[in-house]
């Protein structure tokens, strides 16, 4: 029995195993042009239309570092609370493949641009700090297309030379759930910074997952396997589940684990050996003589530091302090930069007499529901932050009831209509005139004399019937509080 409810352990007979996970995340740098050439990085272009002579490795072509990508890497390093290395070196990683035109990838091996850092995860049982080993810049390869022709492989070099950040974590992760939270947090930080769009469908974020297992309580690390190039959080979790169980089974059967590189088959939900340690490539790393060591000054780094926006952790703390949100609510609102932006805009547009609690409930409740059902990002929300703020103010100042507000909300979705106008046009304004309501109630009591008598004789349940009748008669617009008061008086 584990004392911690959410602890992820694999049980076999008398043994409990914990799972040790480290990730190498490949994040595409948000940049107009490639790491060492001026060609465009735009996604989805016709094959081989965004390829310069440098990207295709023509004779005599030379790489020239894109300063913007360097800045992006440093900003990301700052966001990961990491050490920025003032001197880093680009190395060549040599191997042959059809979609690697140079015959080597320019990467950083011994001296990466960013050193050790950390990321804070918000887990149900509290915060967890995950160590970052390093972040380095490297080129992406092209794409081999094997399924267009039975005989030939086609190569698309559009991606060749696109800048990637490889973010290597320490082996600090212990469960598929932590991996999910970690990836989401990394993605969140980079989206706040504008350094990676985190779009996993377009391959902007993918990871190599290192998995090993050990008897719980053991201090030694087991032999690890690396699962290459997994491109969704769900697949990462599935791959880890499968791989950890496979390793545990091997150990339980008295076998040892071979250090190897494996592939995750998403259709069969299993990992498969790709190559063993013996077959591992000898990449013959050496400093790229076409590039000088990359040197950045303190001024350069400090300038970037001063440009760093408020990041999710700080924003969360502020939301809790300033708006008295619960940590749970704050977490939801800060996890995605666009949600945070939306929330802050709603708050700003609500003006002086604002009900933040109400705003949070509406965003997390109604708004998220319709975004989910329509499968929309909040940045594409059919209801603008400004209009949602107006709607919430209408509830707050009693112009409409919460129930009517839901009707108005539905109507707002069609062309982001101003709720004020909807209320006026449809006459949805709450009826709060006591005299009019009294007249309305008098008529209802008159029409239902028998029930009124029964109520007086003690059948108190019938009060609800009269409230319902009154609301119905007012077309739902009557102020429910007033109705209650008048009914009590009159009955």
């Amino acid at each position, binding site marked *: 029995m584990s004392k911690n409810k959410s602890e992820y352990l694999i049980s076999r007979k008398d043994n409990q195993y914990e799972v040790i996970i480290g990730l190498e995340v490949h994040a595409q740098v948000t940049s107009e042009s490639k790491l060492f050439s001026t060609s465009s990085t735009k996604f989805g272009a016709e094959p081989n239309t965004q390829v310069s002579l440098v990207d295709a490795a023509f004779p*005599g072509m030379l790489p*020239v570092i894109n300063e913007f990508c360097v800045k992006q890497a440093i900003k990301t390093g700052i966001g990961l609370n990491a050490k920025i290395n003032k001197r880093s070196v680009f190395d060549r990683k040599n191997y042959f493949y059809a979609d690697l*035109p140079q*015959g*080597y990838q320019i990467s950083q091996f011994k001296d990466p641009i960013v050193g050790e850092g950390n990321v804070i995860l918000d887990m149900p049982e509290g915060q967890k700090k995950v160590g970052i080993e390093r972040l380095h810049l490297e080129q992406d390869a092209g794409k081999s297309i094997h399924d267009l022709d039975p005989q030939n492989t086609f190569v698309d070099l559009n991606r060749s030379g696109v800048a990637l950040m490889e973010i290597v974590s320490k082996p600090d992760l212990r469960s598929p759930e932590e991996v999910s939270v970690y990836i989401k947090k990394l993605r969140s930080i980079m989206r706040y910074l504008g350094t990676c769009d985190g779009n996993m469908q377009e391959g902007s974020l993918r990871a190599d997952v290192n998995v090993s297992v050990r008897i719980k309580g053991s201090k030694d690390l087991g032999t690890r396997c690396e699962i290459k190039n997994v491109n969704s959080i769900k697949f990462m979790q599935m791959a880890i589940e499968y791989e950890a169980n496979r390793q545990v089974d091997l150990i339980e059967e008295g076998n040892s684990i071979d250090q190897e590189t494996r592939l995750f088959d998403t259709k069969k939900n299993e990992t498969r050996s790709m190559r063993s340690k013996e077959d591992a490539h000898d990449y013959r790393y*050496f400093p790229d*003589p076409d590039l000088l060591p990359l040197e950045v000054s303190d001024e350069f780094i400090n300038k970037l530091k001063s440009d760093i926006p408020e990041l999710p952790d700080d924003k969360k703390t502020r939301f809790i302090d300033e708006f008295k949100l619960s940590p749970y609510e704050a977490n939801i609102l800060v996890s995605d930069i666009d949600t945070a932006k939306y929330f802050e805009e709603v708050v700003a547009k609500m003006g002086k007499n604002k009900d933040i609690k109400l705003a949070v409930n509406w965003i997390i409740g109604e708004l998220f529901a319709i975004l989910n059902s329509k499968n929309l990002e909040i940045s594409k929300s059919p209801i603008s932050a400004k209009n949602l703020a107006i709607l919430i103010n209408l509830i707050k100042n009693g112009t409409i009831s919460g129930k009517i507000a839901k009707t108005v909300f539905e109507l707002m979705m069609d062309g982001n209509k101003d709720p004020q106008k909807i209320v006026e046009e449809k006459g949805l304004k709450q009826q709060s005139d006591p005299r009019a309501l009294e007249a309305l109630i008098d008529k209802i009591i008159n029409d239902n004399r028998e029930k009124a008598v029964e109520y007086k004789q003690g059948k108190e349940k019938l009060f609800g019937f009269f409230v319902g009748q009154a609301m119905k008669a007012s077309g739902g617009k009557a102020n429910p509080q007033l109705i209650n008061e008048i009914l009590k008086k009159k009955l």
Partner: protein
Amino acid sequence: MSDITKQSLSELVKNIKNKKVSSEEITKEFVNRSEKSKELNAYITEDYSSALDKAKKFDQKPNLDLKLPGIPIAVKDLFCTKDIRTTAGSKILHNFVPTYESTVTQNIWNEGAILLGKLNCDEFAMGSSNETSFFGNAQNPIDKNLVPGGSSGGSASAVAGQLTPITIGTDTGGSIRQPASFTGTVGLKPTYGSCSRYGIVAFASSLDQAGPMAQNVKDCALLQEVISTYDPKDSTSINFKRNAYSKELTNNIKGKKIGIPKEYRVEGMPKEIEDLWQKGINYAKDCGAEIIDISLPHTSYALPTYYIVAPAEASSNLARYDGVKYGFRAKGENLIDMYEKTRSEGFGAEVQRRIMIGTYVLSSGYYDAYYLKAQKVRKLIKNDFDEAYKKVDAILTPSTPSAAFKIGEKKDDPVSMYLNDIFTVPVNLAGLPGISIPAGHDSKGYPLGLQIIGKAFDEQNILNIAYAMEEKIDFKNKITDWWIK
């Protein structure tokens, strides 16, 4: 003017500026002589007819303010030339036509020069005799079946044989200076970072430098002035103040301190070379220079260091020639088979040897013992020069340990071939400028050269020293036109 091809670049420029001769006349003469000189095998690709067209066009609207107005020039086939086949002397690029121009050649065209053709060289500039070229060895105009040196062998042959008034070569371990020495011509390897490497087929990136080759020091200075520019397209190009080398050229070197490194008196050095060196020392003294004995203690490690660093870089630089994107492709059963056949058939023996050496020294388990150690030694070699330059302004050595040898003589003995570069290689490792000037003849009448090594970015100084010594030496190249029937 029938003796046009015998004129130096400076004379040709003067005559064209004075309108004594047209670009077309000059170009015609060089084309004619080149056509009569096929036996030298100096050209890989000829571009004569378009050269004549360009010359005519130049004459219609001559811009005489340019530094190379209407001057026809053939260049080493390692420089990428737009729309003109560029082979690097290799089968693997035998059909490669670049869509772009190297910065160095572009600089020449910008000053009014006209491309005559592409000159023979060792395959990927790997060789000291031009015998590794896929297109056959070039001949030395000095004598039949004599190597012109390498790797810029075709370039040296073309300048010495007067097929082009000047040319550009590249020098990774001596590939400009050694062939200049073998052919009685002048060759300058500039400071690393002086001339852009953009568009030059790479051999060893940290050592490669383009440089001028000419019949005399003045022409060499003028060409250096044209080709040396800062280029943001080459990350190792250096933005320093470049002299107007030809304008600032002077033979006044009085009081210059010239160092004589004792370690260059290598074991088994022929007496002829030793005598030449002494002669050079005397000439330098005659010019008013002060001779100072110096020590470059790590000299003997230079050659082994070079033969680790250069092949290591080459093994990686040549990985792009895989049959996938351009150049020669052999048929294969699958990708790996295609790679193996393409590279086995596309590269010659010497290139394959160096790729093997380079791959080996970078392999895990060997990297520290070879590549890393070589880098450390390279630093020591550079430190030697830095120390020496606290005492002297330049260093004088022989260019090569012997005169040109016969074709085939050293072909099967790579180590003896590599020894050709013993005096030139340290200069590349240290990134310094060095110039070879003809200074005498051996017993067979073959030319011998002296090398003047300078401080980084101090091309002007070694050009001045070479200019002053050239005057005293008064070397006459013995060209008999033996190949013209």
